[in-house]
């Protein structure tokens, strides 16, 4: 793609940001684990794990910054937590208490949309609406690989292109739409498809949060500077089934699951920052304690 050169936007994470990336990934992992636990105990009706996608989510969410308005799909738990959604607010809808547990306006993190791809048009419309009112925020729209097959997704790409809307589309391609492999959902990549509509795009691996952070920083800067849409496609691993109701062993072979587990972005990044001496045992223990406390509070609220 023809995005500005990296240097022009200066987008490498500094050490504080790197620790921040790891901390958010660890928190997300812990909350996700606890939610899975709660679901097993019957306290939640359903949980859609984001495990394996934390680097993509945390890297992109930190990169776009707190002022961007986020239109998530339904699996962006790490983004939600990073944006200030508390764990109990996050799981409230999966416990059947509400359709949205948090304050979407204050957090600029809008409700989950369960009808696939419907939020893509909302995001573009919102961006147009903001611009018409003299506010030109960055709008970030998340979707999965499977959702891109819905007509609304293509319509949103075309609308964003024609209106030159300030929208950053982020597609987390976890390789699966429930049981349908991404390779059977499309012939090309989502990034190539976006270019066909006239939207600049890039495809970056989603295992390392720094790569994601850099790419999304560049993309966000591009959207802000050019006032034009951009799409980032991030291949990620899906460690668990589609949801807690989904037995992925039925359709997914053992090696593929093992590969996703082995490529766990959270443990890999923790090891990496540890190896670099950017975090030490004390730091990790402190985060661990924080996570434990979050999990306990969550458990107390829901069991």
């Amino acid at each position: 793609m023809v995005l500005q050169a990296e240097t022009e936007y200066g987008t490498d994470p500094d050490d504080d940001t790197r620790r921040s990336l790891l901390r958010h990934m660890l928190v997300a992992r812990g909350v996700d684990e606890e939610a899975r636990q709660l679901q097993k105990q019957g306290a939640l009706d359903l949980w859609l794990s984001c495990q394996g996608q934390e680097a993509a989510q945390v890297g992109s969410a930190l990169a776009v910054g707190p002022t961007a308005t986020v239109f998530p799909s339904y699996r962006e738990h790490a983004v939600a937590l990073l944006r200030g959604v508390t764990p109990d607010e996050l799981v409230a809808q999966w416990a059947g208490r509400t359709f949205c547990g948090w304050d979407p306006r204050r957090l600029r993190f809008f409700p989950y949309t369960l009808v696939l791809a419907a939020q893509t048009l909302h995001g573009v419309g919102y961006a147009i609406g903001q611009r018409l009112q003299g506010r030109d925020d960055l709008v970030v729209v998340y979707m999965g690989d499977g959702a891109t097959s819905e007509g609304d997704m293509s319509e949103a790409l075309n609308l964003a292109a024609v209106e030159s809307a300030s929208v950053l589309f982020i597609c987390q391609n976890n390789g699966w739409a429930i049981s349908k492999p991404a390779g059977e959902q499309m012939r090309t990549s989502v990034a190539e498809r976006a270019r066909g509509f006239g939207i600049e795009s890039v495809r970056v691996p989603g295992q390392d949060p720094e790569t994601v952070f850099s790419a999304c920083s560049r993309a966000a800067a591009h959207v802000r500077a050019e006032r034009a849409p951009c799409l980032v496609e991030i291949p990620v691993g899906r460690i668990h089934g589609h949801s807690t109701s989904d037995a992925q062993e039925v359709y997914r072979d053992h090696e593929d699951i093992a590969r996703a587990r082995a490529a766990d972005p959270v443990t890999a990044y923790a090891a990496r920052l540890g190896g670099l001496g950017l975090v030490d045992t004390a730091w990790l223990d402190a985060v661990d304690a924080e996570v434990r406390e979050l999990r306990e509070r969550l458990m107390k609220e829901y069991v």
Partner: protein
Amino acid sequence: MSAVRSAALAESINATLADLLEQDPRLLLLGEDIGRLGGVFRVTRGLRERFGAERVRDSLLAESTIVGQAVGMAMSGLVPVCEIQFDGFTYPAVNQLVTQAARIGDRWNGQVSPSLVVRIPTGGGVRGVEHHSESNEALFARVPGISVACPSTGEDADQILRYAVTLGSPVVMYEPIRLYWRRNTPARDPEPARSPTAARIVRRGTDLTIATFGAVTHEVLEAAYALSPEVDVEVVDLRWVAPLDMNTVLESVARTGRLLVVHEGSKDVGIGAEVAASVAEHAFDALRGPVRRLAPDRRAYPPADFEKDYLIGVREIKDEVLVMTK
């Protein structure tokens, strides 16, 4: 029968939209060919010139895009008034209307109250080609969270539109194509509706109540005038089909003891079913005979050469009333 000459429906709507655009900077129009062309029925004629292409927006040719982006615009604080070009082309927008626009308020726990209007030209009688003569108001009438209006005069359309843009939840307004440029219509009782959402008794009568809405209201009135003084028919123009103002209907039936529902959309699981069922539930003791519905059978709107057989005319209405009151 006395007839009155008034502004055509299209002119009224045009004037109302202009006034709303004038008054509220958050309001904008959105639809296929509504700007440069002024709409295929010229309802939005002149508005782009007056308010600019940003507020009178020629949308992409995609109905889901129209409503989906309007939902996002509403979230951003605007009040989008959309147009779907013909009733028969509403379906690609159904998902965004039913699963999104109608539910956003609940999903946001009331933090967003999208005032969002969708205007839809509707109905037959103008020799339209396939898909261009439909009456699908029942489609949305059953959907919680969507209000559905079916005005039969410019005055009502004006009142409905002004109310709709403030409602805080989506409103679909069906505009009868064959009334857009009609000027002569049967006279109505002057009594105004009790509220913007109320039905309106457009003719007082004692022998039988006809509940109706939309373009066919005029044929109903014609029939009522023609039947008088032998049979004195009360005509209720429902104006909204969701939510329904059943109070007005029930009060009328309490007086007349007889109910006929007339509409142009096909009969099965239509608005007439809801009205007739409610009356059978709540005014059973007042009824002097069976309720009846007069509406097309369950079949697709036919090619133009056959639309006369499909549509409900003054004759059918008169015959039905006579059967019910003989």
